[in-house]
C-alpha cells in the first residue's frame, strides 16, 4: 500500500517515513505544493498525509484537486494551526481525519490504519489476528468465536496496539490516544497501566496469546 506524505518539514516527513515503512506500507514524500500535485496526478495512494501550510500553495487546494479528479485516496490533515475553522473546512472538502501537531507517530499510524481499513472494506469490516477477531462495525471482539466483554477504552487500546504492531508505544502516546487533547493537562498517566492490565487479563482468560509485552521504563509493545 502506498502512502504519500505532503509535508514541508523534511525532518518530520522523514521521521514519519521511517516509522511507517514496513512490509505493508510504501511511503513517498512531497515537500511542496507543485511536487505534491504531480504525485497526485500520476499515482493512486491508499492514504495521503497532508500538511496545510505548504510552500507554493494552500494544502486545501490539494483537497479540491483530489475532489476534481474524483480520487478515492484517504486524506489525513496534519496541521500546526489546530483551528476549528480549518478542521471543519478540511473535513468538508473531503478529508477523512484531522490531526493537530504535535502528535505521536503511533497516533498517526493508528489513524492511517483505520482510514485504509474503512476505504477497503465497505460492508464487513473484520480484523483477524490469529484466534482473535474484531468486528469494527458492531465493535464485538471474539477469541475462537467466544466474545470478550471489553470496555470502550480497552477496545480502543486493542485497536491502537493492532495498528502499531511490533512498535514500542510510550505511556504518553497511549494516554493521548485515550484522552485525546486533554492528556497534557495532567502530569500522571498511570491510569494507562490499569487499562492495559485489564485488557491483558481479559485476553488471557480467553486463552489468547500474550502478545502485549511490557517494555522497561517506556510502555508496551504488541509483539507478533
Amino acid at each position, binding site marked *: 500500500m502506498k502512502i504519500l506524505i505532503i509535508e514541508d*518539514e523534511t*525532518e*518530520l516527513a522523514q*521521521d*514519519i517515513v*521511517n*516509522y511507517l515503512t514496513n512490509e505493508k506500507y510504501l511511503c513517498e514524500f512531497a515537500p511542496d505544493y507543485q511536487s505534491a500535485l504531480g504525485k497526485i496526478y500520476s499515482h493512486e495512494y491508499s492514504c495521503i498525509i497532508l500538511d496545510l*501550510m505548504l510552500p507554493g500553495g494552500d494544502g486545501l487546494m490539494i483537497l479540491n484537486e483530489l475532489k476534481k479528479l474524483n480520487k478515492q485516496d484517504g486524506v489525513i490533515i496534519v496541521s*500546526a*494551526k*489546530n*483551528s*476549528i475553522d480549518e478542521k471543519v473546512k478540511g473535513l468538508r472538502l473531503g478529508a477523512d481525519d484531522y490531526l493537530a*501537531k*504535535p*502528535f*505521536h*507517530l*503511533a497516533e498517526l499510524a493508528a489513524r492511517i490504519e483505520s482510514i485504509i481499513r474503512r476505504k477497503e472494506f465497505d460492508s464487513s469490516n473484520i480484523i483477524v489476528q490469529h484466534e482473535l477477531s474484531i468486528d469494527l462495525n458492531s465493535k464485538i471482539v471474539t477469541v475462537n468465536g467466544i466474545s470478550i466483554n471489553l470496555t470502550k*477504552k480497552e477496545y480502543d487500546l486493542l485497536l491502537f496496539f493492532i495498528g502499531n504492531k511490533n*512498535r*514500542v508505544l*510510550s505511556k*504518553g*502516546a497511549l494516554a493521548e490516544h*485515550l*484522552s*485525546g487533547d*486533554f*492528556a*497534557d*493537562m*495532567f*502530569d*500522571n498517566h*498511570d*491510569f494507562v497501566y*490499569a*487499562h492495559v492490565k485489564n485488557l491483558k487479563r481479559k485476553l488471557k482468560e480467553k486463552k489468547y496469546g500474550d502478545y502485549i509485552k511490557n*517494555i*522497561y*521504563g*517506556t*510502555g508496551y509493545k504488541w509483539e507478533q
Partner: protein
Amino acid sequence: MTRLLHKPLKAFALYALIILIISVPVYVLVIDYIWISELDENNLLTLQHTKQTLESKKFSQNDIEDVNHIWGELQPGFSIFKAKDKTYFRDSIYEIVRANNFDESDSENRFRGLKSKIELNGESYFITIETNVEESDETFFAIAIVTFVFFLLMIIGFILLNNRISSRTWKPFYQTLFALKSYELSKEHGINLPTSEIVEFQLMNESLEQMVNNNVDVYRQQKLFTENASHELQTPIALIKSKIDLLIQYKNIPPEMLDIVNSINAPLSRLSRINKNLLLLAKVENQQYSGHKENNLVPLIQSTLDLFEDYIIDKKLKVSNQVQGSINVTANPYLLETLIHNLLSNAIRHTSAEGKIIIKNEGKAIYFLNSGIDNLNRKNLFERFSATTKDKVSSGLGLAIVKEIANRYNWKVNYFFTDGFHSFSLVF
C-alpha cells in the same frame, strides 16, 4: 444616561420655566401700574368735572346734603361732606380695602380713592371718589395660570419638535451608531456607513470607515502573526516528539538512557501545552471565536467528568456533581468547553489523592469546589504564570484562560476558600 437630544430639551425646558416664573410678578407689577395710573387719571378727570358742575350750579347747603344723600344711594363711590375747618388741603390719592356695596359676599375689595376740597357757599367740603380696582393677588393668580398653560404648550411643542428633529436630522447619526454597535472586527470586513448631507456626519462616517479599515488590516496581520507563531513553534515540538517516538523503538537501550529519554516527555508536553494555551489566549483576546449559540452546561459538565474519569479514578477522588436543572449559556461552544475543561482539570490536578470535588449551581452561578488546605493568593491567582504551584505540567495559563473567556462574555469568575475547600465560582 440620557439620550443626546433629551439633554438640550431638559435645559430648554428648565430655562423656559425659570423665565416664565420670573415673568409672572413682572406682568403683575406692570399691569397693576398701568391700571392704577389709568384709574387715578380717570378719578382726577371725574373730580374736576364734578367740581366745575357743583360750582356752576350754586347749590344751597341743604341741596348739597341732598346731593350727597342721592350720591350715596346711586353711586356709593362718591361722597361730599362738610369739612370742619377751612385749612388748606392738597388733593390726595389713597387706597382702601373694604366691602363693595354692590357685592356683599366679598368683604375685601380694593378701592382707589381721590380726596379733594371744594368751597361752596363759603363752606368747605371734602369730595371723595373711589373706584374698584382688581386686587393684585387675583391678578397674580390669573397670570400664573395663563403662564402655566403656555408653559405646558411650549413643552409639548419642544418634545414634538425634538422628535421631529431627531428622526430627521439625526437619523444618519443613529444609523452610524447602530452600524458600529453591531460591528464585529473578527468578521474581518469593513463597515458600510450611510452617506449624509450634513458635513459633520459625513466627516465622522468617513473617519470611522477609515479607522475600521485600518483596524481590520491590523487584525489580519495579528492573526497571521499568531498563526505563523503557532506554526513555527509547533513544528519543532512535533519534531522532538517524533524523534523520541523513533528513539524508543531501538532495542537494547540501556535503562539509564531510557530514564533520560522518558524525563524529556514531561517538559516537552508542558512546552506543548504552554504554546497551545498562549495561542488560545491570543485568539480569545483577538476575539477570534465569534460564533455564539445557546449551550446547556449540565451535559457539558457530565461529559467533561466522563472524559477525565481516568484521572479521577487514578487519584481516588470523590466527585459529587450536584448540578440541578439546566444552565443555559450563550457563548462560543469551543470556548465554553475550554472553560469547563480548565476549571475541572484544575480541580483534579490540585486535589490531593482521595480528596473531594463538588460541583453545584445556585441560580445563575456555578461552583467548582475541591478540598485543599490553604487559602490561595486571590490577587494573582488568575494572572498569567503566577506559579502558585510546583506542578510539573501546569502551563500557568489555565486560570488566565478561564478569566479571559469569562471577561469576553462579561461573566464573573471568583475564588474563595471556605471550610477546607477551594471554591471557584462562575456567575453568568
